[in-house]
């Protein structure tokens, strides 16, 4: 049964996410969603705004195709993504766009016109005590969520964004590209396949020249052994 409620999530990737600074002039957010690919317009909207690695906020419907809310903190001009639950689908996700600042009224307005099908993706690692992260990237928007054991990412638009998994102690690595695994329906991935998948990513030229570097493969292998990583299961629906 379709509930006339749509959850919309705006991820705002800010350069400096501190509150009440001269560079953070916006206190209210408006989201306007247009476009035939975006589905029905909800009566109530929940908004999540990420500053840095993520803060969630809620917006409510303020007019036709418009959701708004005071987020309780001061925000700089940001890029953002909207997501929401949709009728007969796991959700919708928009492209990443820059908000338009209306400084006189302290409103940061996002106008989205293109939407993609979103899916719910669950990650479960073995061992369950392993610290991991998933990173959602739709340039220049980026969202990092840390988890231990299991976590679900909602409204993932694989057609629009890259989702990466990073295992073990945090560093600046790029991570395992989940999109390729979902495309291949390789949803239970053990250590040796993760090592292979990372090598395949490098061979495709992921973030650097295409290379078949044996040292990089051995380094991955040793690092996964050091953290006792065994497998990750990816559930998509």
């Amino acid at each position, binding site marked *: 049964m379709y509930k006339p409620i749509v959850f919309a999530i705006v991820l705002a990737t800010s350069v400096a996410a501190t509150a009440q600074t001269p560079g953070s002039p916006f206190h209210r957010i408006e989201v306007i969603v247009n476009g035939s690919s975006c589905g029905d317009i909800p009566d109530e909207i929940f908004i999540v705004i990420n500053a840095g690695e993520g803060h969630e906020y809620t917006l409510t419907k303020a007019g036709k195709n418009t959701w708004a809310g005071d987020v309780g903190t001061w925000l700089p001009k940001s890029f953002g993504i909207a997501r929401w639950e949709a009728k007969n689908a796991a959700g919708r996700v928009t492209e990443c766009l820059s908000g338009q600042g209306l400084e006189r009224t302290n409103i940061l307005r996002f106008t989205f016109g293109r939407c993609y099908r979103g899916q719910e993706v669950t990650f479960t690692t073995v061992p369950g005590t392993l610290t991991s992260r998933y990173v959602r990237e739709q340039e220049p928007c980026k969202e990092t969520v840390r988890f231990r054991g299991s976590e679900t990412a909602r409204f993932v638009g694989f057609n629009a964004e890259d989702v990466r998994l990073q295992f073990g*102690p945090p*560093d*600046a*690595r*790029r991570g395992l590209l989940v999109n390729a695994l979902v495309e291949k329906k390789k949803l239970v991935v053990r250590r*040796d396949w993760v*090592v*292979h998948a990372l*090598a*395949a990513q*490098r*061979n*495709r*030229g992921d*973030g*650097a*020249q*295409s*290379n*078949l*570097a*044996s*040292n*990089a*493969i*051995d*380094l*991955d*292998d*040793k*690092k996964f052994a*050091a953290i006792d990583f065994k497998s990750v299961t990816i559930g998509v629906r």
Partner: protein
Amino acid sequence: MLRKLVSASVFLLAATAAAQQRSIFDVDDFVDPRQHDTAVFASRLVLGAANNYVDDTRPLHRDARFLHIANSVYWSAFQFDYKHSEVRADAPPPIRVCNCSPPIYFPPVPASDEVPLPPRPGGKDTVQIGWYGGKDLKLRYRLSASNQNIATDLFYPNTNGPAGTLHGHERALGVEGDTYIPYIGFGTVNVARTVRSGTADDRTQSELAYTSRLPGLSVGKILVRGLITVGGVSGRGARGVNVVSPIFEAFWHDQTTRANIHLAWNPMSTRSGRNGWETQHQIALFIDRGIVLFRKH
């Protein structure tokens, strides 16, 4: 500031010096600095053989066997390498020399408007220093210097008696820099200068080449990729682009032994003033196995 100084130094050196096109068995050693947050040491042994072996765009016209040891240290955004290779092939015909001045060698060496022969297969040492730049897209800039000592035994034409030994060497200095061009992709620009002296076939060549690195594919657990090098090399009587050298490589990493098996096909075309375009098909099969050490958290 330090990074700016290093990159400026590398580019200044590039203007005056030069990287020799790497041997087909010199396996990739690009390790993205984002993959490690401590210093990493890697040592790797490569063993294999090549049909129609080619050394730096110079066909040997014989098969060769090779052993290659590469030691690398990755620290922050820097990479330091020391590599040693030993190449062996069937012995070429003995070189005879007349008792005259200047000496005349037989069999005659390729003329200055022909593609030169590489030095006699032997041992070669290479040191490299590299720096990785870029934020989202990592690009490596690397300076290489190599030396190969060449001993050439000479014989008199009629008596087959020894006429002495020439002790020469071939030295190369080069720089390579990765590039990324939107819609075209990644590539590497090589500039190198190679000088061979003290041998029966002293040669000098300068090279400027661009290697396009096509995105690779995976076929099951086998990784496949293609590189295409296009460039100009001096000292063969043909100006402009005179080397077109694609390499198609299949790679398999065995999880049990952690060895990597490579099969590479290199149909290299070179152009000389005397003979025009000629194509040599180099096929190499080799295996590498290494150890990687790093400090754990």
